[in-house]
């Protein structure tokens, strides 16, 4: 206390006053509206020449690996801007902010993008917690929050947040694909499950249990891990003790590799190994050694850039060329880049299909996608939404690892057709 306090107080006051002097509150949001056929609809962030989007990803902290996704998106938009005159003549400006996978930061960044940057829409927020923390806000402000990068089923089943929509197949749908495979291929399978103790792991495990209910397939052991755990070896040992004949590996990449390696090391236990899509990229399998992951099963919906079967695929060649041109520092083999490319081209299609170049137009467009084909997705996987369907991608195809690559097998499974719509 004493003289120093007053000096500090004065300094703080000065800082605050300086901050307040930065500009008036003005008209809240400063939004603009369209005229003509789309009269009254919001045109904030969009002009005839430009469209401004904002994305929120973890560029720092434990989930930073996902920070590669926006690089693929940026490359796609740069390519479209430079070579196709943008989306319908509108150049895309894509702003990326870091939330470190922390919900309060996500809220702050969402507000910054919407209020300060005046973006047209939030194009992707990554992670269930960050999306759940922001979607009340975006829906109150009537800002589209499209193609969020999380597979929680909530985004599609919820009806009170029309401005928020997912993109990738939800975890429950993926679980259903594995359940059906086991029910037909191994009707008496005893399954051991390793899952990440969060929304992702629990959603997938819950969906799986529901889908096998009443069949001969049984979950005989389940073990969870925290993302802060150094290793999942103890869990793997406990699962091995169950003598299950199927191992369902519901993990994120690092732990996926650890679980695959642990399974390979344990020569006493040789179950059928199913690895979920999040950890099914070749970048996860390669460190384990291809010889150790033969016969592993997974399901996918977009093209893995490291899979040689797409070497001559037109879209993959375009992707590789444009990544080299517009994101020279980024390795096109990283599947997150391809994911970003795929989701960006999905946005491109949705925006083109919008009846009005407005926020309302985008909201309606992403909820009315009719068999839209995106070339980075697997053949047969399309975007499909409707009044009672809030899940753009619901098809997946099973694949098995053989030699040095994934081999697709069976047909593309449309989970909605197979199992009916997801309701909760």
């Amino acid at each position: 206390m004493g003289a120093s306090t007053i000096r500090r107080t004065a300094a703080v006051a000065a800082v605050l006053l300086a901050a307040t002097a930065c500009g008036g509150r003005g008209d809240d949001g400063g939004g603009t509206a369209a005229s003509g056929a789309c009269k009254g609809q919001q045109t904030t962030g969009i002009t005839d020449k430009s469209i401004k989007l904002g994305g929120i990803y973890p560029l720092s902290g434990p989930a930073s690996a996902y920070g590669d996704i926006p690089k693929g998106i940026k490359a796609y938009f740069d390519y479209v801007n430079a070579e196709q005159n943008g989306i319908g003549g509108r150049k895309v400006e894509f702003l990326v902010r870091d939330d470190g996978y922390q919900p309060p930061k996500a809220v702050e960044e969402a507000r910054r993008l919407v209020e300060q940057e005046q973006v047209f829409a939030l194009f992707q927020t990554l992670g269930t917690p960050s999306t759940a923390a922001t979607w009340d806000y975006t829906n109150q402000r009537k800002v589209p929050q499209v193609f969020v990068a999380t597979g929680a089923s909530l985004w599609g089943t919820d009806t009170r947040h029309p401005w928020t929509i997912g993109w990738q197949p939800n975890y429950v749908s993926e679980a259903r694909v594995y359940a059906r495979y086991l029910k037909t291929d191994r009707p008496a399978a005893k399954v051991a499950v390793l899952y990440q103790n969060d929304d992702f792991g629990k959603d997938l495990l819950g969906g799986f249990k529901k889908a096998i209910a009443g069949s001969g397939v049984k979950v005989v052991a389940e073990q969870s891990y925290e993302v802060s755990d150094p290793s999942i070896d103890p869990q793997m040992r406990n699962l091995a003790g169950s003598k299950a004949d199927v191992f369902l590996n519901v993990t994120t990449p690092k732990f996926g590799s650890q679980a695959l390696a642990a399974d390979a090391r344990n020569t006493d236990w040789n179950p059928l190994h199913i690895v979920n899509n999040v950890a099914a990229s070749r970048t996860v399998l390669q460190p384990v050694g291809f010889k150790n992951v033969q016969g592993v099963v997974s399901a996918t919906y977009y093209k893995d850039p490291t899979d040689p079967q797409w070497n001559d695929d037109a879209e993959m060649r375009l992707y590789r060329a444009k990544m080299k041109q517009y994101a020279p520092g980024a390795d096109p083999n990283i599947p997150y880049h391809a994911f970003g490319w795929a989701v960006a081209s999905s946005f491109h299609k949705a925006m083109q299909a919008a009846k009005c170049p407005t926020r309302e137009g985008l909201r309606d467009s992403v909820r009315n996608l009719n068999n839209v084909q995106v070339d980075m997705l697997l053949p047969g996987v399309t975007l499909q939404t409707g009044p009672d369907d809030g899940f753009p991608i619901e098809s997946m195809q099973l694949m098995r690892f053989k030699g040095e690559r994934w081999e697709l097998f069976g047909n593309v499974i449309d989970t909605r057709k197979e199992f009916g719509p997801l309701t909760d």
Partner: protein
Amino acid sequence: MSETANTANTASTANEAAAEPAEVQAPGRDASGEPGSWGARLRDAAVERWRPIALAALLLAACYAPFQLVPFRVFQLTMVLVYAVALLGLNLLVGHAGQISLGHGAFFAVGAYAAALMLDRWDVPYLLTLPVAAAVAFVLGLGLGVPAVRLHGLYLALVTLSIAVFLVPLLKRFESVTGGSMGLTLTKPAPPAWTGLAEDQWLYFLALAVAVAAFLLARNLLRSRVGRALHAVRDNEAAAEVMGVRLPFYKTLAFAWSAMFAGAAGCVYTWVIGFVSPDSFPVTLSITLLAGIVVGGLGSLSGPLLGGLFVMFVPSWSQDINKAAPGVIFGLLIIAVMYVAPTGLAGLAGRAAGRIRRTLRRE
């Protein structure tokens, strides 16, 4: 006059320095502003009259800000206040009682969850959640404080860190109560119609009211007998014990209070964010809070506010500077502040203001 101020300043630093080789400096001891000589006392007296004016100006600016700023900025300032309240509690413990806690995020989370559960399950009026959340955190702090105060420095830091580590899986385990890893989404407090305020402004004023109350409470606590006992504990534990300070009692109390402030901050956090999940309160939150208070300035009342500003704004600046790796900049900035101001920004701000004032007087 300028001459007086100068001598006073050198004299007081000199005293500090002279004392230093003989005694080990207590953690977080504020090195800059201890009135040391008659000159400093004279200056204090002169400055005493200005303090209320400066504080009033600060408060006025704080009340004026939400009407000038865009809602996004108002939200940021609201979060600064939330962090400041939590740091105020941490300051009591670390800055005034000399105990290191790396688990403050846990008490923050407890307050946040307490408020969230009350709002979600029982539709408790939100204003009522504040005292309850603070009380829950206080009781928990008291309970954990009893064993914790038997530990010293490093060990206390580790045990508190353990609490923060353990809380996340614990919240997930009791899914039926806490909503598990999906968390709980809540409706934010709506501004009463008579205020004519927007939601962000209303939340800001709620946070401001809580922060002002917390600052007053902290100030009075420190001025009381208890505060003096805490300082005695910090500066020389053995001597304090000899003087008859009941150590375990005061240390436990400091622990519980600091938990209470964190709990109150957590409650306001729930109002403002409207969403709680286990992953909202990772271990890094606790570490960030500790970094915040040390960077802000331990042992001073303005430290928590400056720390809150740091915690809120610096990560954003970091990513403006280096999009590819914001952590590189953030890490460097923390280190840089510690170089420039080993006693925190409060000390630095004080020195800077002092220098400016002296310069002004000379002219």
